[in-house]
């Protein structure tokens, strides 16, 4: 077990946004959380990463770091790529004295090579394309060799080729560091190319759980509506 979520509930004021959901993700497994906008997908990631507190339930994780790749990369725009990637190693109290400048340079170079961006240490985020920023944010996320990686819409806003590249990195990272990964997305290509399992959220509840192949079978009204992107079905778009 790497992540186990049990009976998780989150309310904003009186509105229940996550309503008693439970799931597990094992080491080396990629779970895709899908659903229409406003279904609570990103909230689940924020709860697991500890950015927001939950009201009830449990989140159990194996010891080790949790990393997160944000939807819009969230690179520190006042720092260059080297400082962005080495940020946790330089600023975390338990790590800051562990690495020399040479060590940091080697680690950053190695992580950049892993995401196919050699030699851009001195560039600033504003000098990079959206796809490159996303890959740098991957490198920053994996710098501490986490055992859980959370991806918030990793391919949103990218062109198809960049999306494919990012999807390949998610799969290769799964093999490289054997981390448990959760990918929040609503892009079919990302689900099919990266996920081992899929859960679908609607109104804060899990309405489908299965493999990507099961999703494509459209056996339930929810999966049928999602795959066909239909406005007709049990899931209503919020105004």
């Amino acid at each position, binding site marked *: 077990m790497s992540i186990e979520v049990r009976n998780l509930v989150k309310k904003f004021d009186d509105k229940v946004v996550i309503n008693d959901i439970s799931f597990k993700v094992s080491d080396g497994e990629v779970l895709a959380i899908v659903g229409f906008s406003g279904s609570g997908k990103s909230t689940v990631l*924020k709860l697991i990463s500890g*950015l927001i507190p939950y009201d009830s339930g449990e989140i159990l994780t194996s010891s080790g770091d949790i990393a*997160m790749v*944000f939807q*819009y990369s*969230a690179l*520190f725009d006042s720092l260059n790529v080297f400082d962005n990637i080495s940020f946790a190693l330089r*600023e*975390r109290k338990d790590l800051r004295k562990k690495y020399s400048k040479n060590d940091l340079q080697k680690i950053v170079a190695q992580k950049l090579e892993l995401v196919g961006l050699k030699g851009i240490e001195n560039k600033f985020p504003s000098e990079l394309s959206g796809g490159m920023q996303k890959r740098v944010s991957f490198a920053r996320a994996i710098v*501490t060799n986490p055992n859980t990686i959370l991806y918030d819409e990793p391919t949103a806003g990218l062109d198809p080729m960049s999306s494919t590249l990012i999807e390949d990195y998610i799969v290769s990272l799964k093999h490289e560091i054997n981390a448990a990964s959760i990918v929040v997305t609503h892009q079919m290509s990302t689900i099919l190319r990266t996920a081992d399992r899929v859960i679908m959220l609607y109104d804060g509840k899990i309405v489908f759980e299965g493999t990507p192949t099961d999703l494509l079978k459209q056996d339930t009204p929810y999966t049928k509506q999602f795959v066909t992107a239909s406005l007709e079905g049990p899931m209503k778009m919020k105004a």
Partner: protein
Amino acid sequence: MISLAQYIKKSATYKIFSNIFEECIKFLNTIGQIAQIGFHLIKCILRDGISFKELAYQCERFGISSLPITLSIVGMTSIIVSSQVANEMVKQGGADFIGLLMTILIVREVGAVMSGFAITSMIGSSLASELATMRVTEQVDAIDVLSVDSVGYLFIPRVLSGIIMMPLIVIVASAIGIVLGGITSNLFSGLTYRAYFTSVWLGLYMKDLFVSIIKSAVFGGAIALISCTCGYYASGGAKGVGIATTKAVVWSFIAIVVWDMVFAMLFFF
């Protein structure tokens, strides 16, 4: 048929009082946020220490970039006051006290307060918009997810730079203000430099200097803490950044006036 409760809710008086109540809640909420961050900041300093590299960068930003505007504002205020006062004082036979009056005015009040206003508009707004942008673009969340305390990382160097740099800026601005007061008095009322600066020494008390330095440090810390807190709790995109910046400037101005009143009561009553 409209019920009494609905009628009351629709009335202008109800709306006015409900708005006042809402503003009071927001006011208390902001004070709570600033206090909470302040305590957390002290905890972070004791627990994690200080990053001197980042502190040096913030000191440079706080001091160097705000110096021209601060000196201009304090200097011009001094010119305005001395041009108004010098003629009258000479007419009333009080020419010997112009330097003394200007010194007390600048060291006790104008230097610190006008510098505070200048630094709020220059640095406070910049700190608030910087942190607010970091918040709405999830950079603050990214710091937290990387297991680095975002309050410690963002606030310690900024608040400490305010505490360190503000007294230095105020000392320089006050000195320039006093000198410009002398030049203006000479030009407008023919007062000799010797008479002016002899009088300046009479009005320069150690206690005033000490209070001015302490007050400036408090102003600097308050401006940085308030501005960073307003930015840190921003939400809602570009509009949220604008709201946070405005709030930071207004709250910093209020804090300067309130602290100035506290210091006046503590040391000069």
